[in-house]
């Protein structure tokens, strides 16, 4: 396969390329809250929370190969930890993030123990049960004093039009942002509530991305992929299967709780009826991850952007007049917004043409334009390999890296 440009990994050209990509991402992230409409900022916030959750799911499903349909429960755990701590115990919302992470981490580790015994579809069923039980647990009368039961923890003062966190009875929570009298978010707050939530969601997405990137590019990450590809071989190489799965599940669950906390802060209320806290949330994370590309760092990011774009664009399509003319014959029958239906079709088509998701397509075709040649590892000391008598059996010279 010929490529237009070939760049060596670590060369100046490669760094320029990487900086360019980073600059584009930063530019988009800055452009949205400063120049974009309020609607766009809200959609972007939605996309950022969903991509954080999908990235967390990707760690356990995409990289470690452990099916989880229970991540909405971890997401909800984050939302409720934040909601309860802020409304009942008057915590600063910032401090609830680490607590939400740790709490969900522990729950995730507990879930991992059945996961180290069972595989595939059976694990999917166990985690499915978790997703189904979670909203009912929230409604359980005995926990009502904590969770608020069916109605959940309502918005303390819906008329409150400041940028303060507004969960439960507390209002004007912004006071708690001050660090020794210094309010680092004062400038952001000046822009109004919508960009403020955007920045919280963006910060969490960046943290989740960096954590996952750190894990998967290391020895720990390789052990996760090894577990996914071949458990027996991984164990023989010295990978502790139980501990590895427990950690991966814990980190995945903990990270998934963070966007949950963001949701609680953003909505100013939590209830078991929020769609992402139910099984629908799990399925959304799953679809986003699969469409973007499971087992790739950028998959959930691309997937979430596409998902929010499609659902936003089709949001008004219950009304026939809102459907663009060409598409009206296809969706005119729909009495509800057909966004999820359209996405289901995309999913089915993509599974045929690109089972590794959109990032998989990118990885397949981008080398035709720019190919990054990996930095060679180790040095061939002799022309002839030391441990092979005859190298004529190296029968695949095609596609060698130069």
């Amino acid at each position, binding site marked *: 396969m010929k490529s237009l440009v070939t760049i060596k990994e670590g060369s100046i050209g490669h760094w320029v390329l990487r900086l360019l990509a980073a600059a584009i991402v930063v530019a988009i992230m800055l452009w949205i809250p400063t120049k974009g409409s309020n609607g766009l900022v809200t959609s972007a916030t939605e996309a950022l929370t969903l991509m954080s959750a999908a990235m967390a799911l990707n760690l356990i499903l995409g990289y470690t190969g452990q099916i989880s349909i229970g991540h909405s429960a971890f997401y909800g755990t984050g939302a409720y930890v934040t909601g309860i701590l802020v409304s009942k115990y008057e915590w600063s919302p910032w401090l609830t993030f680490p607590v939400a992470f740790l709490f969900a981490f522990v729950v995730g580790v507990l879930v991992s123990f059945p996961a180290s015994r069972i595989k595939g579809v059976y694990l999917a069923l166990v985690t499915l049960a978790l997703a189904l039980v979670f909203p009912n647990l929230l409604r359980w009368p005995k926990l009502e004093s904590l969770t608020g039961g069916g109605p959940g923890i309502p918005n303390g003062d819906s008329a409150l039009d400041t940028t303060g966190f507004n969960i439960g009875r507390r209002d004007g929570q912004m006071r708690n942002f001050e660090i020794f009298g210094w309010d680092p978010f004062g400038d952001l707050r000046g822009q109004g509530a919508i960009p403020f939530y955007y920045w919280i969601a963006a910060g969490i997405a960046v943290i989740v991305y960096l954590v996952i990137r750190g894990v998967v590019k*290391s*020895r720990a990450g390789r052990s996760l992929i*090894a577990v996914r590809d071949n458990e027996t071989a991984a164990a023989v*190489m*010295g*990978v502790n299967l139980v501990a590895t799965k427990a950690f991966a599940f814990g*980190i995945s669950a903990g990270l998934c709780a963070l966007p949950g906390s963001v949701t609680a802060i953003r909505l100013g209320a939590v209830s078991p009826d929020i769609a992402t806290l139910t099984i629908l949330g799990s399925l959304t994370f799953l679809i986003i991850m699969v469409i973007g590309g499971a087992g790739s760092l950028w998959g959930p990011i691309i997937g979430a952007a596409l998902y929010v774009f499609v659902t936003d664009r089709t949001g008004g399509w219950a009304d026939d007049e809102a459907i663009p003319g060409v598409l009206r014959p296809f969706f005119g029958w729909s009495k509800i917004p057909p966004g999820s239906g359209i996405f289901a079709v995309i999913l089915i088509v993509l599974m045929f043409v690109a089972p590794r998701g959109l990032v998989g397509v990118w990885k397949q075709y981008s080398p035709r334009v720019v190919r990054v040649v990996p930095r060679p*590892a*180790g040095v061939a000391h002799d022309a002839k390999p030391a441990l092979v008598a005859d190298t004529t059996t190296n029968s*695949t010279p095609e596609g060698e890296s130069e």
Partner: protein
Amino acid sequence: MSLLQVQDVSVRFGGIVALDGLSFDIEDGQICGLIGPIGAGKTTMFNVVSRIYQPTSGQVMFRGQNLIDAPAHGIARLGIARTFQNLALFPTMSLLENVMVGAHSQGKVGFARAVLRIGASKENNATREFAGELLHQLGLGPLMFRPAMGLPFGTLKRLEIARALAARPTFLLMDEPASGLTHGEVDELGDTIVAIRDQFDLTVLLVEHHMSMVMGISDKVVAMEFGRKIAEGTPAQVQADERVIAAYLGTTE
């Protein structure tokens, strides 16, 4: 003291006796061939040593330590590595990454250090260089960035050896390394095994059906049938043993 002492090991799967009181020793630096007809329990023996199977009774002493007390993932750290008969590679990873996973037991960076990036990239680079060297030595250097999936069987067999060596083992178990190889590759493999033993100071336990290779490179051969040892000694002694001949060719009785 012998490097490995297999003492009266039995494995039963329900009513089936896969190993029946098997005992043998391997000395340091030897290449020991384990032979026997199909179903004799050779691979079961392997899986006991690499802790994939739990023996019903008996013990396996390695440098005076009972391996049965160690968990499956603890074996690599003791210096024991193995290759698999029907390949147990990580298909989505490149050859380089496969060998890097092989070095897992040598590394230290866990989840916390990976997230906080404490020494993670330094260890990564060292492992990467080491893995690359091994691939070059086994003639796989030019292929190191290709995924393991889809490469020829003979190439992948060699990758298995490279991955096992990445654990810096002192004891290497090879489960039918010659199966599925062409004649030319088998001859080459025998030389490779001897060269590896010499270069890395290894003791090798070899399960193999390819008699000319086993007899050619082994210092000692153990013959099995129906989970029992039927002969043990130098290749010449085992080849002359009546019970071995009977097991392979049958008797006239």
